[in-house]
Structure formats: structure tokens, C-alpha cells
């Protein structure tokens, strides 16, 4: 019966550019009725961008959208909702102190403008939640609910508004395996009920277990649309990479692919015998109190680079901040250079030679309105190296800044340039210059080359090697698998706050790492 009917969604020739960057290059997408459609691709493949266009968050430069065969013009999320499109973002748009029901009816014309009778709405929500297996108490206050349940609220919000096409953006990122199973069950119930679901994901196993068809995207283009029955994990991984069977390229499937493998020279290992850093049984919670690192053990020898490979949101930020002394650990211990560090203030970690290059350079790394000189002083303003007669010696600091600008090739008018005026690569050079200024014992790098040009990237790698040659223990946390594999003496895959595998340099199978960090590791293919 579906054969006579037009597909639920057709997107034709969608183009979206951000400045000079082409994010979507004439993309086509077709989603049938009663279908869970996987939208698969690595970081930056354009899958979320495409769905944001559909949901009215981005205006496309070209292309058309048809729903049930009829062309529609969607200029805002409101239009999308009216057209029967619902989207569940990775971050939930909910009013924390409202109940589930209140959040769901918000913005609808329930009861009447000067009344508030939610009885009917509550019944409707109960009915929807039973029908699709989205168990939730309509009277619970959402801030007290776990992530998985809040996600159901977000889905119910779309269903309550009559969505026929539901987009889920990386919905499993923070879910437990049980919650993932429940979610997939609900998705099946929805398509059985006549809806269509688009699942945005980079996890191959997920698409295989729940999707009827999948569209693979890469570099802003659609590569292929495949029926579930015609594919398997290896094949999908190859499509994500570009059809090549060379396992060396497979890593591209999960990496940004910013650097070609040959650009990175072979590592000359400088690993020493002495243990530089030991962490045992680390449990770390995020700002909301959720355990994002669950029992993590780690040893780094002096001069060793340990790479943490993983998909964002698996506890990287918490791990980095805990090991940098910025975030207190809930339990476990950290020793740096034989000294137990847990419980000491951040300044003591800094003094002890722990240097941290944070992921979010602008938010955590620099004082934007302050000069390069001042940014280089940040963190060591109390150190005797910086002070003369108790006062900060700006003359010497400025001289050091001039040297650092020279040595680290920072492109700036001079040491007085505000750090916020620098480009991303140059900000990173300033942060590295600060980190390396006092011969660190331990260096934590989190996505150190993200958004950098090739020159800056290579520069970062050279600096890291120089540090290890001097005996520094390096923890490299990166979502760029290429980078992790090329630089590290040892690679650890991080998945949901725990180790999902470990490989010494030279025997790293990129594909295996990629599978471990997407939760495929323990699965049979």
C-alpha cells in the first residue's frame, strides 16, 4: 500500500554554506513511511546540519523539501512543528522546574489562555506514553528525572504536537544500554504506528540494530543509501570511509581527518622506566552530579604519550579536569611524580608541574581581554619566577612573551595584543607556550588540534614530542583518531566513562579502536 504513496520526506539538492565552508553540498535524502532511517557519518559529515535545515533552524542556500509529496517551506521550528516534523536535540530544551505535562503542553493552545486545565493533556500524554512505551510520570518535575526519561519527555513533546516525522540527534549518547534498548523499542512502535523516524548517529551498531535503511554522509555529501538487509558493519564502515578496503584509512570513519597519516612522522619513543602519573579507580561526576567517569585506571610513564580515543561526551572533559586538578574526584587517587594529589587545590597541581591544555580554548584557556603577556603569566602569578620584590615583573614577563611569540610562531602584533583578538591556532600556541613554560611533569591535552590549520597542528605535535623527550608524561585526549594513533605510545579507547580497550603503539588496529570507542568492541560481527 505504501507503493502508491509518496515518501514521507524528500529533500532534494540541499545546499548550505557557512561563509566559505560548504557544509551541505547538494544533498538528497528520502525517508519512507513506517521507516526508521539512519543518518550515518563521522564528525563534520553534515548530518545534523541537514536535519537542522529540515527543522527550520538553518535556512538552506538551495534545495527543496517535500513532505508526503507536497513541497513545504520551513522557515522556523514553528513551521516544522506545524508541518508535522519533530526534533529531539542533544541538549534538551526544557523548563527544569516544570512538570512533564507542563513542559509538553507549553506553547500549545491547551485549555484556554486564561485557564489551566491540564487534565485532558495529562490523559493524552499517558496514552501516548503507553502506546509507544515511553514510560514517564506526567506529574514528575523534569529536573529530578534522569537523562533517559527527560529524553522521553522531549520525544513526547513532538508526539503531542502530532509529529509524523521524528528526528533524533545522537539520542543514545548519555543513555545506559537498557535505556537504549527501550528507546529503540519505542522507535519501532512509532513506525509501526505510521510514523517515520530519522536517527542521526555515528554508531554503526545502532543503525544496524534499529534502522530499516541508512544514508551515509561524508564531507557534506550523501555517499549512499543502503537497505539494512544489504549491509553489515564492515561494509558500513567502508562506506563511511569512502569504499577503500585499506584499514589505514578506516580510521577516517570516526576521525575528523584533519591530517594525512604521512604528515606525522614516525614516533621516536622517549618512554622511560619511571612511572610519571598513576590514577586508580577514578570516579568523576559532571556538574549535574552524574557519574561520567566510572572507575578509571591509568599509568603514564615519564616521556610516554597515552592517547585516549573516544567519541565526545563519553567522559573526556571530566577525566581531563580531574587529572588536571580542576575538578574534584568523587573517589580514587591520582599520583603525579610520586606525590598524591587528590584534595589539593588547583594551584598546587600547577605548582607541581601539571599543565592542562583544555578543549574549549576560549572558555577555559584564555583571558580574552588581557594581553598575551598577561595570559602567559596566568597560573604562575605567585611563582617566584615571575616576581621581583614581591611584585610581578612585567618587564621580564614581556620579554618572555616576546620570546614565546618568536619560539611558538604566534602571529600577533606584539606581546600587548589581547588574546581574544588572535585566531584559534594562535590562541592555542599561546596556551601551549604557557603550558611548556615551566617544564611540566605532566601534560594533559584535550582536542589540542581541533580547528587548527595544518601548520599549527604539526607545530603542536612537535611541541608534544619535545616535551616527552624532556621526560614529561602526556595524556592526549582527542576525538581525532588519526591523531591519537599517530602520536601515542599507547592508545586507550574510552566508552561511557570506562576503558574499552588498550593497544600499544605499533599494534593498533585503527578499525578495532574505532569499533571499541563506538561501543562495538565486544560485539560479534
Amino acid at each position, binding site marked *: 500500500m505504501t507503493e502508491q504513496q509518496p515518501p514521507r520526506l524528500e529533500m532534494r539538492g540541499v545546499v548550505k554554506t557557512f561563509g566559505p565552508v560548504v557544509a551541505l553540498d547538494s544533498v538528497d535524502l528520502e525517508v519512507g513511511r513506517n521507516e526508521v532511517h539512519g543518518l550515518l557519518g563521522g564528525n563534520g559529515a553534515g548530518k545534523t546540519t541537514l536535519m537542522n535545515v529540515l527543522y527550520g533552524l538553518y535556512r538552506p542556500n538551495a534545495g527543496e523539501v517535500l513532505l508526503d509529496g507536497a513541497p513545504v517551506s520551513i522557515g522556523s521550528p514553528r513551521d516544522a512543528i506545524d508541518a508535522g516534523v519533530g526534533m529531539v536535540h542533544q541538549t534538551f530544551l526544557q523548563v527544569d522546574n516544570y512538570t512533564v505535562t507542563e513542559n509538553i503542553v507549553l506553547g500549545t493552545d491547551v485549555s484556554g489562555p486564561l485557564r489551566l486545565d491540564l487534565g485532558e493533556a495529562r490523559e493524552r500524554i499517558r496514552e501516548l506514553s503507553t502506546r509507544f512505551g515511553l514510560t514517564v510520570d506526567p506529574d514528575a518535575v523534569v529536573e529530578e528525572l534522569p537523562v533517559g526519561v527527560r529524553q522521553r519527555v522531549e520525544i513526547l513533546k513532538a508526539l503531542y504536537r502530532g509529529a509524523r516525522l521524528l528526528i533524533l540527534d545522537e539520542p543514545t549518547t548519555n543513555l545506559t544500554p537498557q535505556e537504549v534498548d527501550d528507546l529503540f523499542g519505542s522507535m519501532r512502535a512509532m513506525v509501526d504506528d505510521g510514523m517515520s523516524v530519522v536517527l542521526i548517529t555515528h554508531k554503526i551498531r545502532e543503525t544496524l540494530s534499529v534502522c530499516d535503511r541508512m544514508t551515509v554522509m561524508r564531507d557534506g555529501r550523501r555517499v549512499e543509501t543502503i537497505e539494512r538487509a544489504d549491509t553489515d558493519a564492515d561494509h558500513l564502515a567502508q562506506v563511511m570511509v569512502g569504499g577503500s578496503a585499506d584499514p589505514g584509512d578506516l580510521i577516517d570513519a570516526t576521525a575528523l581527518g584533519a591530517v594525512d597519516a604521512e604528515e606525522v612522522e614516525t614516533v621516536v619513543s622517549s618512554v622511560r622506566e619511571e612511572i610519571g602519573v598513576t590514577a586508580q579507580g577514578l570516579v568523576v561526576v559532571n556538574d549535574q552530579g552524574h557519574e561520567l567517569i566510572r572507575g578509571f585506571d591509568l599509568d603514564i610513564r615519564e616521556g610516554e604519550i597515552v592517547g585516549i580515543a573516544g567519541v565526545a561526551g563519553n567522559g573526556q572533559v571530566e577525566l581531563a579536569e580531574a587529572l*588536571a586538578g580542576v575538578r574534584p574526584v568523587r573517589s580514587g587517587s591520582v599520583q603525579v611524580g610520586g606525590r598524591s594529589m587528590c584534595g589539593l587545590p*588547583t594551584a598546587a597541581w600547577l605548582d607541581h608541574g601539571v599543565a592542562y591544555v583544555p578543549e574549549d580554548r576560549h572558555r577555559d584557556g584564555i*583571558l580574552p*581581554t588581557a594581553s598575551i603577556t598577561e595570559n602567559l603569566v596566568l597560573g604562575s602569578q605567585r611563582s617566584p619566577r615571575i616576581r621581583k620584590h614581591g611584585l*610581578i615583573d612585567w618587564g621580564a614577563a614581556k620579554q618572555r612573551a616576546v620570546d614565546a611569540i618568536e619560539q611558538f610562531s604566534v602571529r600577533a602584533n606584539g606581546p600587548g595584543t589581547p588574546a581574544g583578538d588572535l585566531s584559534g591556532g594562535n590562541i592555542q600556541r599561546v596556551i601551549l607556550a604557557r603550558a611548556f613554560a615551566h617544564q611540566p611533569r605532566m601534560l594533559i591535552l584535550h582536542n589540542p588540534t581541533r580547528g587548527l590549520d595544518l601548520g599549527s597542528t604539526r607545530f603542536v605535535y612537535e611541541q608534544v614530542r619535545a616535551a616527552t623527550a624532556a621526560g614529561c608524561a602526556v595524556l592526549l585526549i582527542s576525538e581525532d583518531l588519526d591523531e591519537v594513533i599517530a602520536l601515542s605510545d599507547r592508545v586507550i579507547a574510552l566508552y561511557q566513562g570506562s576503558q574499552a580497550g588498550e593497544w600499544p603503539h605499533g599494534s593498533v588496529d585503527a578499525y578495532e579502536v574505532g569499533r571499541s570507542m563506538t561501543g562495538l568492541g565486544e560485539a560479534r560481527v
Partner: protein
Amino acid sequence: MSETMTPAPPAAPAPPAARPTNRVVEALWLLVPYAVSVLLAFVVGGLIILAIGRDPMAAFESVLTTSFNTRFGTVETLHKWVPILLCAYAFAIPLATGKFNIGAEGQLLVGATGGVALGILWSDLPTIVLLPCVLIAGALGGALWSGIAAFLMVKFNVNEILSTVVLNFISFQLIDYVASHVWPDRGAGHPATVRVGDGALLPGIGEAPPFHSGVLITLVLVVAIAVFMRRTPTGFELRAVGANLRAAQVHGIKTSRLAGAGLVVGGAVAGLAGAIEVAGVHGKMLEGMQSNFLILGIIVGLMSRGSMLALPVVAFGIAVLEVGAGSMQRTAQVPVEMVLIIEALILLFLLLSDIVRAKIRGQ
């Protein structure tokens, strides 16, 4: 001073839109919004003066020239400049860490109480001993008063805006009590204390009428605060917290404790202003001596937009306007409040200039 960091409290603007190559042009660029805002505020003020049927030109002439026409006017301007500037520091130093101190008048009054207490109790001591004691007692009094707010903020998370304001009103009663019960001057016809000993008075400087040496102390303080904010680790940390709280935390700075310290230091400066008012201007403590220094200090602090170097200059400008206000009322029959309106307008136009600048930059 090209490396002077401009902390970014909410009031602070973005750096100038254009990036001129040389520093003189850069400095001039910073002045343009000030000049335009002052001009516009005077235009609007002039229209209001016209609307109430007075002569704006006569009013503005007396506002702008009174400070410079007579020596008396100049001395009065300097004497106003001191408390306005110190109250501006009291506002701006905590603001460097992103905290709003709206309690400078309470801190000034408690500082004055501390100063007057020693000045009366130890009135026989010579200047060399007593005067420093009076000034230090003033600073400690102010620090104590803002310290209450700092304690409540750090310990109990009490909003510092509210606590500092509420402490103002408590201090009004406190000094009223001191002036009417502890050391009352029954003959004053107005709540006031008896005079402090001669050793507590700041010596005058120059021919009659002299200005008090508190002006010199303030000049020293201007330098000291600049050095403190720029050269000491604590000053650097204060500015770092204001510039980027997260980054400061990641780099080992204890942000909440520091924010409390900023409030205490600000209070100390306001307290010193109180002691100087006692020792230099009144010779005693009296009700209402806080004048409108709180408001003027906030205006100066907001207008200077985080620059410790701009503060003394802006404060001088405001002192000129304030001294001129009285003579404007006498000669042009324009109420003194007109000046407050003009000052508020300058501030609003200065805020709007950010929008204009962002627009220019966007094109």
C-alpha cells in the same frame, strides 16, 4: 600601558571597532564615545532646561567654569574629587571580579565613625601619631562593613548587591546614634559629633583657602591602587577573575575567596574616604556627610568601564559638574538635580555607544 588589562565586567565595552595602527589614534578612538556621549547628554539636558524656561547656555557656563574661576572653586572641586574617586574605587575594585558593591556610603560612614572615634578618644596625641591612626581606623571600619557583606556572600551565598545596600541603611542609624548619644555636639542643631583633636586633622596645603592634604594621600592611593591592580599577584588575580571566571578557576585561582577580598578592599577604600572627610573637611562626623558620593562613585565606576587609570580623570570631571551644580542653581535658577540627570544621560549614551560601535564594526 598598552598591556593594561581591561577586565570585562558587564559594563565594559568591547575593544574599539577599528584597529588603528598607532597608539595615539587608538587612545583617541577610546575617547570618541566619551566625547559624543557627553555632548549628547548636554544637548538633551539643554532641551530640558529650555523646557522649564531657563537659559541652557548660562546654566552650562556656570556648571563648567565654577571649578576654574576662583581658587575657592578649585579647592572645593579637589575636596569633592577625593570622596567621589575613593567611592568609585570602592565600586570598581569589586567590579573587577564581577561583584557589585552598592554599599560605599555605608562603608564611608562606618570608616568615618572609626576615624572620629580615635580622633576624639585620643585627641591629645600629636598629628604624627594620631592622624595615621585615624586614617587606618577609617580604612578598617570600611573594610569591616563590606567584610560583613563579603562574609555573607562567600559563606552563605547572599547576593552582595542587596547586603551592601541594606548595610547602608543600618549605618545611617549607627552614625545617628554615635552623633546623638556617644559624642554628641548638642549645640550643632543637627546630629553631629564633637570635634576631633587637632592632631587628627589633615594639614592644609597652599595659600588660603588651602586644600587638605587628603588630596595628596588620594594621589598616592591612585598610584598604589594602580600598582596593586597591575603589579601584585592578588591584583592580577582580581582582574583575571573579572576577565574570565572559568579560565581563572582552571588556572588555580580561588575565585570566590578573591571576590570576597575584592569587596573588603573596596570597603577599605570607602572607609578611608570617610576618615578623610572627617580629618580634612568637617573635623567631626555629621549626619548626611555621605552626600551623594555613593551614586557619583557608581557613575564614575561605570563610566570608566573597568579602567583603573580612567577613574581619577572621570572622577575629576564629575567633581567639576558637582561643584558647578550649586552655582548653576544660584545663577541660572536651574535645580541642582539637573546635573544628576545629565550624568545619568552620559552613562546611558555611553552604553548605547557600544551598540553603535558594534553596528559600525558589523558593516
